[in-house]
């Protein structure tokens, strides 16, 4: 019996395109002419020092911040002015900085809120099973108040909540922040797993070394401007990146 070796052909299908984006708080401009593309199935990181504007970028994409100029496209649809509560319905889920769970609600109620929009409700049980298979710990803790869990558990719950809407792209803002090294490793393993499920990922991280092992490409933002972009291996090999972010 002969068998065909399937060749992996990478066809780039654009999912998220950010073009010439300018965002600010009042008269303070936080992002200058940012261009970012994420293709379907890719994992892309945004890295940069504190205050660079990474969170601002994520918030602009998911509609939490108004955009001064530039465009945000999701699968060819202009979503620049779409309000946050409609963005999620287009398949963009956001795991916010500092997790932002509903602390006085149970884990399961938190997850339930992730599938709140009417079109997600029909799949609630299916998605809940999926999230519980990904995080058996969440099933054990399903009735615990989210605010009483450990940082790592809360991060799992926050990711689980975002996955409840069966998104096409997952935005993650520093999922490893404030966690013990062992837990950080678990978070990155998990991102790998989510990626292998075929989900597209855009992730903000400060653990540069670890995140570059997981993602396909990365962008570096400094002081609101795009400094550099490339594949993970390109960036890992760049002496600038090594000096500024990898402590070599």
């Amino acid at each position: 019996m002969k068998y065909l070796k399937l060749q992996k052909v990478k066809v780039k299908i654009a999912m998220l395109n950010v073009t010439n984006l300018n965002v600010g708080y009042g008269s303070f401009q936080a992002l200058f002419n940012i261009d970012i593309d994420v293709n379907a199935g890719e994992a892309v990181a945004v890295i940069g020092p504190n205050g660079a504007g990474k969170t601002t970028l994520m918030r602009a994409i998911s509609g939490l911040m108004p955009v001064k100029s530039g465009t945000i496209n999701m699968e060819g649809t202009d979503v620049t002015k779409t309000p946050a509560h409609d963005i999620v319905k287009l398949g963009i889920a956001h795991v916010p900085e500092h997790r932002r769970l509903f602390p006085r609600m149970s884990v399961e109620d938190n997850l339930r809120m992730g599938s709140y929009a009417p079109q997600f409700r029909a799949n609630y049980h299916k998605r809940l099973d999926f999230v519980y298979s990904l995080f058996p710990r969440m099933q054990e803790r399903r009735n615990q108040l989210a605010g009483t869990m450990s940082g790592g558990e809360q991060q799992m719950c926050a990711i689980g909540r975002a996955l409840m809407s069966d998104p096409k792209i997952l935005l993650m803002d520093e999922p490893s922040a404030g966690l013990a090294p062992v837990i950080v490793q678990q978070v990155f393993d998990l991102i790998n797993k989510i990626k292998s499920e075929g989900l597209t990922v855009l992730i903000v991280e400060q653990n540069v070394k670890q995140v570059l092992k997981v993602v396909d490409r990365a962008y570096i933002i400094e002081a609101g401007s795009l400094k550099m972009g490339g594949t993970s291996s390109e960036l890992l090999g760049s002496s600038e990146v090594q000096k500024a972010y990898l402590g070599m």
Partner: protein
Amino acid sequence: MAEFLDSLFSIFFIETLMNGLLLGGILALLSVGLNLIFGVIDVVWICYAEIIMVGMYLIFYLNNDLGVHIIPSMIAGILFSGLVGWLTHKIVIARLIDAAPINQLIATGGLLFFFQGAAMIVFGIEFRNMGVSLGSLAVSEDIYLSWTRLISFAISGLIVVALYLFLSRSYLGAAIRAISQDKEIMSLMGVDTKKLYLLTSAIGGALAGLGGCLLVLQYDVHPFIGLSFGPITFIICVMGGLGNMVGGFIAAFIFSELITIGGYFAEIEWGYVLAFVFFIIMMFIRPEGLFARKS
């Protein structure tokens, strides 16, 4: 002393306790709507009792002047109060949602005078009575409880339980609990927070209307009736921990018993004095309320 003990074990004291319980039911219902709005929107409607008054007037007008049957009149009263609650948010609060709390207080305080003034212009300042009497239930030879109060108590209880189930079991109820904990994140969950605030305000208004249905059976309607219930309702919410519905519920019964017990030993006005003194002392001991949630 013996006289005091006598009065404590008297049959009339038991009747007093029961009446306190019945009053507590109504106060619990009144506080639940105000608490819901505070808990979700983080705004205190100073004019809450005036929305109750508006509901009472509509019921009175439909039933007494137009001869509409009492039940449809009450349903109209509930729906209209819900609309008033919706409008209160839409026209006033939505514009002040990010303003300082004092601005919101002044605005809803202004609404209080608006509702009082409007009621005076439309209905005059006469006390109006529905003249409904359902008689009393003889619990024993000496204890009589008014049917109106009993029915009000039962309805209050049902509504409070229904609201509790709604908030704890339904999608919408969970969203209402969640939005009070993190408004911005709720929009990431696909919730139009502006719409949810309007809906909550309408539910709060409708609960005020429901309170109006029960009060109109027992009390005269006049433009200042809100002053008889507004302060107590507000104080019950504060004592229970503002926004804490279960706390408010328990506080309603503590308050109503203090009022009726004070009224039993002296005049009913002394009952209020007793209750308010208790409130002031409590505010020194536990300023965050009896059942404030840990933050």
